[in-house]
């Protein structure tokens, strides 16, 4: 029994192997197990007490000493044991059972993986989420894009590509970030391979990067965290890890804002907010659309904001006032004794008569007129000297024909040639001239929009036949002819033709080589001609009294940035800080329905706005408002009050945006 110390001596008990796969069925039924135990194959090994041994010609009992040694009856004559008993049903040992459980668990897991691997995670069915490939729901912003038609392949190129490709993908970089760049764009130069468009990979920007590894999108933006997950969160600790200036709190650690903050350039529209002008009587709401406030508070259009006071600028019924806005495309000079014979020599009566569609009487008049010109006599010195007004009126014609406005002979010669050309195919002739000066076909179409060829021909033929066109009706807005030329009167603010001509005038200053002949002066000449300075008190006058002409960097044909003069037709935000974000809305909400903008935007009484716009340099800052100081923000954004972490105001990426292809997909 158990209390017997010697009960398991080698000769008192059988040797029990702990790793036997089966245990005796009798023991399982709490009976006495047989001494022989089950066989390795799971059959009962104890139907007999022993297996007799044949010694020479006799069978010898081999019952174990633990069972009492050889029995008295000995083996049967046929060699079988004389003590037999019914077989038991051995059972598997605990170890084997455990092993089987484990194998079943492994098999079940594999079956589950394989059974659900075919379920498309992006499918619309409710059970798509149980796919063994699905890593979880995407964030709300990505759900509709990534799961629409292309599914997981939007980001994971290897998905659903077949067993071979997926096996290859196992050993190749997945480059998920490249998938991100399929939709997301950034303001920095783009290079999908090196992800250089992520500014914090830019070694010139961040010199003290912890490692040379590139920062991939996934390092910060971990997807599949659920629909409501914020995958763009960045901690201040992360910012502080690289930035030399460590920030524990905005109010105490953040550097002071720059001297002109938030302005980094001159505004696109000249508008004096200071108290010295009539504008000071206006409320901010009168022009700024507070309801549409975001980073900037947009200005309503001209009609809504400026129109109330300045709306009649371009709609004057007074002919003299309206004339100031006229664009003089063609100014025919008074031909004198020197120029007329030279010109008239080249006039082919037959050709001109055909071009002007003249009948016989008119043809006779033309013949007489040319004869008069050829025989013209007198002294050109007797002619009055050209004044500034005349020169301004000639500026466009002179620039287009390549003549100098103050050189009568050359000007007359070129205009004479032009008149002949205009009598034939007027718009083609004008288009050719514009093209020589760099205007594209579409620009030319805009520049000459609404200009009737018949009107041009009438002017040319009228001068050729009668010595001057005789207007038949009162001048209206648009293209019109006068006795000495062809002009355009704008229809109102934002007139596309006038705008196109200003753009053409401004861009002419960017011309180089032969095309640039006279371009240096043309802008100066164009300005007063098209935008008389008497309309507004100061500045360059007219459109450009408000709209700035600025020298700005634009992409040239070869892609390299090039400084060009451009007219600014829109109110560009004074501050383009790609890594800074700001939202007016919570501030407007806090300050009430009638916003107290002055809390942050303090008027500057010493502002000299017009001075800022005299030149083309946009880097001139110092507007109507004093710069915003950090202390103003820190009044609320301080520890324990309003949120003041880095990410509240700073972007990680430069000008994050979306690609057009992606926007198109969204619309579809």
């Amino acid at each position, binding site marked *: 029994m158990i209390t017997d110390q010697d009960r398991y001596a080698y000769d008192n008990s059988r040797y029990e192997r702990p790793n036997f796969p089966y245990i005796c069925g009798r023991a399982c039924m709490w009976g*006495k197990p047989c001494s022989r135990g089950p066989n390795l194959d799971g059959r009962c090994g104890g139907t007999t007490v022993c297996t007799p041994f044949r010694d020479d010609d006799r069978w010898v009992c081999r019952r174990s000493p633990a069972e009492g040694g050889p029995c008295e009856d000995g083996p049967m004559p046929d060699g079988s044991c004389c003590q037999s008993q019914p077989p038991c049903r051995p059972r598997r040992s605990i170890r084997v059972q455990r092993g089987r459980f*484990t194998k079943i668990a492994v098999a079940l897991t594999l079956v589950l993986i394989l059974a659900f691997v075919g379920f498309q995670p992006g499918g619309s069915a409710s059970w798509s989420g149980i796919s063994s490939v699905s890593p979880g729901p995407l964030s709300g912003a990505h759900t509709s894009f990534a799961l629409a038609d292309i599914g997981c392949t939007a980001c994971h190129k290897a998905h659903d590509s077949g067993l071979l490709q997926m096996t290859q993908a196992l050993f190749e970089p997945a480059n998920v970030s490249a998938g991100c760049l399929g939709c997301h764009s950034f303001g920095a130069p783009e290079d999908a391979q090196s992800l250089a468009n992520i500014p914090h990979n830019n070694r010139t920007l961040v010199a003290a990067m912890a490692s040379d590894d590139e920062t991939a999108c996934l390092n910060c933006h971990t997807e599949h965290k659920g629909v409501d997950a914020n995958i763009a969160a960045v901690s201040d600790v992360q910012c502080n890890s690289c930035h030399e200036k460590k920030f524990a709190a905005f109010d105490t650690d953040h550097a002071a804002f720059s001297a002109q903050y938030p302005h980094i350039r001159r505004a696109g529209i000249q508008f004096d907010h200071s108290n010295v002008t009539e504008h000071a009587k206006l409320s901010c709401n009168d022009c700024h659309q507070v309801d549409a406030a975001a980073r900037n508070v947009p200005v309503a259009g001209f009609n809504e904001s400026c129109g109330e006071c300045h709306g009649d600028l371009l709609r004057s019924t007074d002919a003299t006032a309206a004339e100031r806005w006229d664009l003089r495309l063609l100014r025919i000079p008074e031909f004198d004794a020197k120029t007329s014979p030279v010109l008239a020599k080249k006039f082919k009566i037959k050709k001109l008569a055909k071009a002007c569609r003249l009948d016989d009487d008119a043809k006779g008049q033309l013949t007489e007129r040319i004869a008069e010109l050829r025989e013209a006599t007198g002294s050109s010195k007797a002619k009055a000297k050209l004044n500034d007004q005349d020169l301004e009126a000639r500026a466009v014609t002179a620039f287009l024909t390549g003549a100098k406005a103050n050189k009568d002979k050359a000007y007359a010669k070129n205009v004479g040639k032009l008149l002949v050309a205009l009598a034939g195919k007027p718009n083609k002739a004008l288009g050719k001239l514009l093209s020589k000066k760099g205007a594209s076909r579409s620009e030319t179409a805009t520049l000459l929009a609404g200009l009737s060829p018949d009107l041009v021909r009438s002017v040319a033929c009228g001068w050729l036949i009668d010595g001057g066109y005789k207007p038949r009706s009162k001048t209206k807005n648009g293209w019109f002819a006068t006795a000495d030329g062809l002009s355009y009167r704008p229809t109102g603010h934002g007139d596309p033709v006038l705008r196109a001509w200003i753009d053409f005038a401004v861009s002419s200053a960017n011309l180089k080589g032969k095309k640039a002949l006279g371009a240096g002066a043309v802008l100066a000449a164009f300005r007063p001609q098209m935008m008389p300075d008497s309309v507004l008190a100061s500045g360059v006058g007219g459109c450009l009294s408000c709209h700035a002409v600025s020298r700005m960097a634009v992409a040239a044909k070869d892609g390299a940035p090039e400084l060009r003069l451009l007219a600014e037709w829109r109110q560009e935000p004074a501050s383009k800080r790609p890594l800074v974000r700001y939202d007016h809305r919570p501030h407007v909400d806090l300050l009430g329905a009638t916003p107290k903008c002055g809390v942050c935007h303090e008027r500057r009484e010493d502002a000299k706005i017009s001075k800022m716009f005299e030149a083309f340099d946009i880097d001139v800052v110092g507007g109507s408002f004093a710069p915003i100081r950090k202390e103003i923000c820190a009044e609320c954004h301080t520890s324990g009050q309003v949120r003041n972490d880095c990410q509240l105001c700073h972007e990680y990426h430069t000008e994050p945006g979306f690609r057009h292809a992606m926007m198109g997909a969204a619309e579809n």
Partner: protein
Amino acid sequence: MRPVQKFGVSVSIAAALVFLGVAGHAYQSWRHAEDATPLSGYILIVLFLLLGLFSSRKKLAMLPAGRAAYWTAAHSVGGLMAIGLYFVHTSGTVWPGGSAERLLAALFYLVSLSGLIGYALQRLLPSRLTRAGVEVIYERVPAELADIRQRVEALVTDATEQHGSDTLARHYVESLSWFFRRPRFFFDHLGGGRRGLAWVARETEAVSRYLDDSEKTCLDEIAELAEIKDRVDFHWSLQTVLRYWLFVHLPLAAAAIVLALWHVILVHVYVI
């Protein structure tokens, strides 16, 4: 300090250093917008496989792979480290979003929980078994019980034959045989109760008044055997728990390793 304890302390220190290194690397990587999950993931999967080797070591007892006690210590420390590394790897996410990852997380939690429970059982129950006063190998419990039962029945038969009274025999058949037939009071033994002995005492006392002195002597011998049997029952209960908790731990651990390998494959195909 015993060698096994020294080994356990050494392994614990090493594991703590590795964990702190990985956690520190993960934190630094997070600060610098770098991805640390591959490193912690690789370490975790290697750790899973090493922990799984513990089961294989038992099957390969013939190999000189060190004492099982060392393996147990290393397995326990490694298991604890795996729990920490898991949360480093998931950046503290308790419940992931994907179905396979959720299953993996659930399996990992169950394996960890069963492992912790198993560790506690292995620390608590052996000392209680030592205090039982007898030692018996789990596989020999049926034989011991059969032996005790055989002796009790021999005593009852002898008493019946000697005294010509079947009072004791009938009482054995109707009452005591239930106790000797197989292990009893499983959960009571686990809780450290003595209901088995109380039951025997109550049953022997109930019949004692109907027996003469010689039969009472026989009944006393039966009570002594019942006490020994109760200790064997105690062993049976505790050793059963010590063996069967692995029925939860091992299959779940194997399933978790398979899913973890699947996770590695998916991550390599889709992300890395």
